[in-house]
């Protein structure tokens, strides 16, 4: 699924890289998470350094955050970027979460292709949001995320490989 294949964001909403953003930094993200009780404060301290993209509403208010971290998958025997997205409840419409996911996919893939960051061969997502999972049940999404199994909680795991990624055979 290209960016053109999903509905556009509602007027005025946008997705931007946190790095280099003038008005929003780690403190604003921490406050946003705390306001919405997105996670315990102790966890937020660690995750704030994993922030990748932010979603802004028409008033330039922070309404969504995506984070990415590296983790080795025992099943795949490969290292992937794992991406998580939190959207403020009152802004959970208009595909904002999916836009953040695709922005992260494109950003990390570009880093891989340029050689700037080749630590991971692809991007893994665990589809925890029940609404999203019920809606996106195809084994292969058009956005090139392929179903590779379920985790212990029954969440679908999907992988997007970067171009030229190799499978690490025993």
């Amino acid at each position: 699924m290209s960016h053109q294949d999903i509905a556009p964001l509602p007027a005025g909403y946008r997705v931007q890289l946190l790095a280099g953003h003038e008005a929003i930094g780690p403190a604003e993200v921490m406050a946003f998470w705390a306001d919405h009780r997105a996670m315990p404060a102790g966890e937020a301290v660690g995750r704030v350094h994993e922030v990748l993209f932010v979603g802004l509403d028409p008033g330039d208010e922070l309404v969504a955050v995506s984070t990415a971290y590296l983790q080795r998958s025992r099943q795949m025997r490969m290292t992937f970027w794992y991406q998580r997205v939190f959207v403020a409840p009152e802004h959970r419409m208009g595909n904002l979460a999916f836009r953040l996911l695709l922005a992260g996919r494109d950003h990390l893939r570009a880093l891989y292709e340029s050689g700037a960051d080749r630590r991971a061969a692809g991007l893994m997502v665990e589809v925890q949001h029940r609404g999203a999972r019920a809606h996106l049940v195809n084994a292969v999404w058009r956005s090139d995320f392929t179903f590779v199994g379920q985790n212990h909680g029954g969440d679908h795991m999907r992988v997007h490989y970067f171009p030229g990624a190799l499978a690490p055979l025993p």
Partner: protein
Amino acid sequence: MADPDPQLPPGYTIELFAEQAAVSHEDVIEMWERHGAVGPSVSGRRVHELLLVAISPDGEPASVNTAYLERDPDLLMDLWFIRTFTDRDHRMRNLGLALLLKARDHFDQRFAGGDDTRGSGLGFEIENVGLRVHGDATGYPVGATFVGVNHRGNPLWVRYFPGVLAPGPPA
């Protein structure tokens, strides 16, 4: 990744085993056993899994593939697994790949037409240690995607049929 050239050498044909009369079950068993590919204890059962046969210009079986349905306990999906054997005298002619492409098209069409929706895709399990080299995570061998190391410890690639759905949560 574009599929490699699947063209057959002159004089060779590929047929659905069930729809041809030139090659019999006994011909295939003889080929398997002559090359030690499939032993007598297995050939009698596997011969009923024959899907496609490549027939040489002399009317002999040059390469065959078999297909069986198996549930993958990690994906919680049923997949078609394909085995291919090519007679040593007919190797280096891309027969194995040609059979694989034909098998893919065959299963795609049957799934899309609703004739056989038992499997959700094609599974490719690399058991041969000699073949365990680094491979593309996507595209190998016919648009399949690496989905991990399976319950037998073998690397598994899957090519889902177009439009197939992922399973629901475990019971």
